[in-house]
């Protein structure tokens, strides 16, 4: 085996691939050939590094140099300067928000606070090569379980670890396994929910792209523990790269006897198949997911019965999401005690978040439960973009709520987030700054749930639509004070009466913004004013007579002819015609146009 002296890891996550990770890999290899270094330096395309803000990423090992925003043209320089002359290519290094280039990933705030369990192999191994997974103790947990543990011991271990479902509800995984285990009916199914649907969330996709074997191994462990011999991964068809890597992984695992008949030479059989979803958010709900896999309309049904009683094809079924499974092999290998030490008492381990919005370091992070929002946003996330002021953070995607300044020091875990009116959800985290109107934010999330409602129950099908319409009226300044009361009532009824979690939590963004930003709602309704200055319909462009010199520049730029005035006379904007495009502001050299 060739012993490489250096490794070049190229991020092969969907984001970086979209911006040319493939051609970067190719041209790196070409450059190495040119300098006859192909036997000394190995180029590996890995899963996502998480630091998507500055992709594509190339990491040089062993010195951990972290090159950002690399273009295929930069590869020659990396080879010649760094690999041959030992000089880092300064211009490609990450620049910290406070200034200064950072030499290697060890010194990046983004990575300092992270502990990677679910993402342990993402950005580290070649996901298309089972050998690399095995070199990282892959399939050890499965081997251990099959040769040394009873199903009950496995379940006890998972229960003991305190692992809770990472998909949204936070139900204890071990308990779920036990329900399926205790149901005697056969066959049983192990289902992996890879129907990640929150806007901006991509943790499951990254795990599947970066470490597919971890999920397969965990599903096999779950199969052994619950007594199932069939595994199904419900994955959205919009994840072609994850699907491709899963297919490769399944093939390789079968070749090695890690899946299929007689796993590890024992009499345990377990195989995994893929089922494709069309990308409906509601299919993240486990009953809807199961119906969709059965070929039925993807809509939820009343629970009980729970899937452990009557799931796929009416058989006992255990459903966990990708991230939950990804934790399992580590729990088996390192022990429940080790796992429990990370995180908080009731929420053990780590959680992966997709950090997005007005934060400097957008990307995928994994932190111990109990890390505060402040640490995540200001340390890992590098604070708010463009030096603006932090306003709120939405956790839990469209089902969660908006948290404010006062919640920044709340340690993040399942129960704390619920207590302050939000939820963990699958781990979306969207940061908002002072320019964000909270009514519009609520409206944005509602728009999503209205689109994604399956339409089965009336409060979600019609109620959320009406909620959205009323929010629209508020942002247009057309609502009255009494409408706010009605808005609140609709929210409560929808939460109180909807059939599934999607509908029950759909009003959360509205309720939490009303709770935390009541004055903003009142301002829209009573003063027809948007305090953040973001609601177009409530803006007024006006000309300050003192500043206007009558140069006609604004009138000439106005696309709808809303500005009138004689040359050298003060101009005027007709509010009925104005479309609030802002062209006049840009055109005016005398600061004579103001936005009210």
């Amino acid at each position, binding site marked *: 085996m060739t012993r490489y002296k250096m490794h070049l890891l190229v991020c092969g996550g969907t984001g970086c691939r979209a911006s040319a990770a493939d051609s970067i890999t190719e041209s790196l290899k070409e450059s190495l050939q040119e300098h006859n270094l192909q036997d000394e330096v190995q180029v590996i395309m890995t899963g996502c590094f998480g630091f998507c803000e500055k992709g594509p990423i190339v990491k040089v090992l062993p010195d951990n140099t972290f090159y950002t925003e690399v273009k295929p043209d930069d590869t020659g320089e990396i080879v010649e300067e760094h690999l041959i002359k030992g000089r880092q290519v300064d211009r490609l290094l990450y620049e910290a928000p406070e200034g200064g280039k950072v030499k290697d990933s060890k010194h990046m705030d983004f990575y300092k606070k992270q502990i990677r369990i679910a993402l342990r192999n993402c950005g580290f191994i070649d996901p298309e090569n089972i050998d690399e997974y095995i070199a990282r103790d892959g399939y050890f947990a499965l081997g251990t379980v099959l040769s040394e543990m009873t199903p009950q011991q496995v379940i006890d271990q998972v229960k003991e670890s305190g692992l809770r479902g990472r998909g949204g509800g936070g139900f204890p995984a071990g308990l779920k396994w036990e329900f399926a285990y205790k149901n005697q009916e056969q066959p049983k199914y192990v289902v992996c929910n890879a129907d990640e649907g929150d806007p901006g969330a991509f943790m499951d996709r990254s795990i599947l792209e970066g470490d597919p074997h971890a999920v397969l191994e965990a599903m096999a462990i779950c199969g052994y523990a619950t007594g199932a011999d069939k595994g199904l991964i419900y994955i959205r068809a919009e994840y072609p790269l994850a699907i491709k890597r899963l297919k490769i992984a399944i093939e390789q695992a079968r070749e090695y006897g890690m899946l299929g008949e007689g796993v590890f030479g024992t009499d345990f059989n377990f195989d995994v198949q893929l089922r494709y979803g069309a990308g*409906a958010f*509601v299919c993240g709900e486990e009953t809807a997911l199961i119906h969709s896999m059965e070929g039925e*309309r993807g*809509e939820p*049904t*009343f629970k*009980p019965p729970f899937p452990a009683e009557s799931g796929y094809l009416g058989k006992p079924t255990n459903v966990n999401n990708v991230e939950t499974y990804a934790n399992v092999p580590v729990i088996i290998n390192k022990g429940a005690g080790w796992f429990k030490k990370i995180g908080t008492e009731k929420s053990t381990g780590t959680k992966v978040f997709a950090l997005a919005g007005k934060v400097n370091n957008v990307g995928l992070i994994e932190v111990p439960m109990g890390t505060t929002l402040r640490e995540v946003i200001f340390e890992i996330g590098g604070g708010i973009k463009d030096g603006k002021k932090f306003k709120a953070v939405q956790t839990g995607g469209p089902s969660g709520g908006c948290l404010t300044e006062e919640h920044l020091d709340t340690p993040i875990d399942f129960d704390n987030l619920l207590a302050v009116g939000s939820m963990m959800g699958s781990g979306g985290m969207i940061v908002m700054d002072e320019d964000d109107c909270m009514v519009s934010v609520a409206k944005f999330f509602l728009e999503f749930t*209205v*689109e*994604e*409602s*399956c*339409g*089965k*129950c*009336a*409060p*979600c*099908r*019609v*109620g*959320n*639509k*009406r909620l959205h*319409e*009323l929010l629209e*009226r508020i942002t247009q300044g057309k609502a009255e004070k009494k409408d706010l009361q*009605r808005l609140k*009532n*609709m929210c409560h*009824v929808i*939460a*109180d*009466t*909807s*059939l599934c979690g999607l509908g*029950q939590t759909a009003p959360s963004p509205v309720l939490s913004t009303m709770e935390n930003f009541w004055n903003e709602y009142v301002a829209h309704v009573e003063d027809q004013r948007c305090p953040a200055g973001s609601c177009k319909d409530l803006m007024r462009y006006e000309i300050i007579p003192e500043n206007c010199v009558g140069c006609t520049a604004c009138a000439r730029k106005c696309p709808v002819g809303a500005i009138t005035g004689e040359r050298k006379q003060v101009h005027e904007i007709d509010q009925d015609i104005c479309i609030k495009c802002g062209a006049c502001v840009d055109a005016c050299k005398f600061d004579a146009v103001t936005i009210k």
Partner: protein
Amino acid sequence: MENVKLTIDNKQVEVPKGTTIYKAAKQVGIDIPVLCYMNLEDIGIENKPGGCRVCSVEVEGRKNLAPACATEVFDGMDVKTHTMRVINARRTVVEFILSDHPKDCLTCKKSGNCELQDLAVRLGIREIPGQEYAEMSTYKTDYSPSIVRELDKCIMCRRCESMCNDFQTVGALNAFNRGFDAAVAPAFEMDLQYSPCTYCGQCVAVCPTGALTEVDHSRDLIDAISDPNTTVVAQTAPAVRAALGEEFGQEPGTLVTGKMVSALRRLGFDYVFDTDFAADLTIMEEGTELLDRLKRHLDGDQDVKLPMLTSCCPAWVRFIEHHFPDMKDIPSSARSPQQMFGSIAKTYFADKIETKRENMVVVSIMPCLAKKYESQREEFSVEGNPDVDFSVSTRELAHLIREANFNLMDMPEEDFDRPMGESTGAGVIFGTTGGVIEAATRTAYEMHTGGNLDGNIDFEQLRGFEGIRKATVDFNGTPINIGIAHGLGNARKLLEAIRSGESEFHAIEIMACPGGCIGGGGQPLHHNDTTILKARQKAIYEEDKNKPIRKSHENPEIQTLYKEFLGEAMGEKAHELLHTNYFDISRKIEIS
């Protein structure tokens, strides 16, 4: 069965484990409002998607409200059905539903008979907040030969889906689209006529709003009667007389035969005849065919197809043509009574009264919506002139009678016109499941054995309400195995058994609707109460019992018809006028 004790509105209730809150509440006289919920107990169909949330109630210790129709009780459960939280939620949810429902109640076919309207009345809804800027769903209206779909009025209760998929296994209706745009329609939003729909009308029978209704022919009827140059002939199906009274406040099971006849005369029909006459004719043809097939079978003829299936039900015929086209040679080739009637009326009777068929309009009064479609089938017309011009349902007739300002119950009792108004008890029982095969048995038995049944003509073993029934009738030493199914899902089971060669039946009767024609899609709405169907069934057997003649072959007018006009049963003329072929329509439907 284990019992659980619970409290509903402070009342103690004890019910078997597994009971829902809704049913437990009923037991102590609390009627929780429901909308999407439907329980057709006698045919084993319970629709409880938990979709409308109108039945939401408060359960102590539960985070959100529980749908009473779908939530099972548990020991010590404390349920409140009338707290302000519940009342507010219920009203808000109904306001939501109404906010996306057309407000054209005045001209809606279901006005006065609409469960959504009733609910709005019951809850005292006076305004829909925000209606002025609320977007409404709009869909195109779909007119098929039998059924009109106005999806704007669909409230996603899914009852039609339960009937179409679970009970009938037809699969013509399914939810489509998501969220606010969701509604129920054939796949790819096709028109119903291009779907596998059989026009059985069970979707219409359970639709709580005006989203699914019958094609209305009352305007055509008024036009026909108003035309002085047209002879308008009525035929009334047996099941109509057992249900029409309900539309005029009578108890289910009230027979109104004579009053119906006089009402039709007052409306201006020139002749009021009975489809039962044609039912007797059907027995002559179908019975003869059965005996012929049986005889050949007993003689060892390998080519003969058995069992023979009845062919009176047009929805059932369309079902086999679509879903089992490989078996389309199994049903009897005899036309349905409606079509036999039309065919004879426009030949034999038209000759008698010296009228041309072009000047005669034959109208059938049917409990059925599929009959509207059947009358339009091409093979049942001569040079573009249909044997039956159109078919109106029991409900449409009731509307007409009310419109004419008659009270049906004040009408005198009158008898049908002759000759096509003469019928036997055998013709009457066509209206219920098991009736056709019992009528056929009465005639076939006597024809086959040459004996006389005398008074022993009540074949009780063929009667009942079970979905699939089996009986063996001893034809003087030859045991004849008879199968009966009502509901196409049950029919499918028997057909699959035939296909796989497991069936031992000689004859099978199939009716598409629950209970047979008495539960047809054109009948007065049962509003989820299937005991109404059973009462109608009882009335049908009552009418049979009261008939002086109870065997089809003893109908004197039938005997005259053969003597004067048709000749032999299954003879050449009979073949031309009274028999038909079936077609494979499975591909046609899929492609178009």
